[in-house]
């Protein structure tokens, strides 16, 4: 077993894990942060996207030990108490989800898109940037709208 020290959603946590423990398993099983989902075993679906040191990564494709010393943000760290983050609110307002399974990964990826591309996103950019996030319900249309609206609202306009 190895000890890992990770800052998750601003709080330092530590745990004993096997070397093979994936970051997503550590988040879900050790910390009970079950908002981060696992939708595939081929690193393709994006339901497990979290931010590690400010960058979007697939937490099913990173060992917990590799995140030792890192700052991790999960979907649970996005809202301000009971007040939804503007990106979460945009998914609600634009019907950007149906079953909701892919939504945490979509929101985390959306925040990364805004970090790198700013608040004014055209549809083509959003569609290209969402290539690593798979949704089986919505046909993506309203997800794209949500990301654009959320990005705009994050800019305060």
């Amino acid at each position, binding site marked *: 077993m190895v000890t890992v020290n990770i800052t998750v959603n601003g709080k330092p946590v530590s745990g004993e894990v096997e070397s093979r423990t994936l970051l997503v398993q550590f988040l879900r099983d050790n910390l009970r942060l079950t908002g981060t989902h696992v939708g595939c075993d081929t690193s393709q679906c*994006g339901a497990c996207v979290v931010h590690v040191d400010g960058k979007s990564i*697939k937490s099913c494709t990173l060992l917990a030990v590799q995140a030792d010393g890192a700052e991790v943000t999960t979907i649970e760290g996005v809202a301000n108490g009971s007040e939804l983050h503007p990106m979460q609110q945009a998914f609600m307002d634009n019907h950007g989800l149906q079953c909701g399974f892919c939504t945490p990964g979509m929101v985390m990826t959306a925040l990364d898109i805004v970090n790198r591309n700013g608040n004014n996103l055209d549809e083509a950019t959003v569609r290209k940037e969402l290539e690593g996030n798979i949704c089986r319900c919505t046909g993506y249309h309203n997800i794209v709208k949500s990301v654009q609206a959320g990005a705009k609202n994050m800019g305060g306009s």
Partner: protein
Amino acid sequence: MYEFNYRKVDSVDAAVEAIQQADDGKFVAGGQTMLPTMKHRLASPSDVIDLGGIAELVGVCVEGDTVIIGAMTTHAAVAASAEVQAAIPALAKLAANIGDPAVRNKGTIGGSIANHDPAADYPAAVIALGATVKTSRREIPGEEFFTDMFETALEEDEIITAVTFPVAEMAAYMKFENPASRYAIVGVFVAKTGGEVRVGVTGATSCAHRGLQLEAALGGQLDASGIDAVELPVENMNSDIHASAEYRAHLVKVMTKRAVEACAQ
């Protein structure tokens, strides 16, 4: 995934030593291929040696007419590098179209070429640009690096430290991508360097290679008019659920023409 001993090292020497001491050790770079492979139990190393702590392997620099990319530089970093964008824009664009943003934030150039997936993008650039693969013990010409599907010239305990790319006069990469994974069903990189036009082909056959017949048809010019007449051996092409051998042979020529046209623009 089976359990293993995990070791993070902070120097190339320490990594080489760690792998020599292990029963069946493997390096991990970005883990974007290694971890899925281990999850599926297609690999079960006794020891995983993490190259993530070796700072000297990360970064891009341009020296004269050469772009040097450290082995642990991520696809996202290459795509975003102003230096690569200025020196070899086609290379930055190639990196920007590997997989998806999260994969690009972890996956590395060293891992991509060491793995030599026959559908990976970088190998086409390494071959067409006449790059050199620098390792912990030698320099390997890009053209000789890829030996067969998932096989390279690397020894078990040899680490890629950097890839050096001569700056091309003109270059372009065109891939016909798998819409789910973004891997190349066929990818063709065309580069004009020092008066010579080279073609690197990935995805089409079991091994990334120079398109010598295509190069002959181009005859050192960025003029694609001779490409249609090239007869590529269909029996060498990969065939799977994504594309038949005949279709791949056709795509190689189409992608070559598009890359040549993109160069000429």
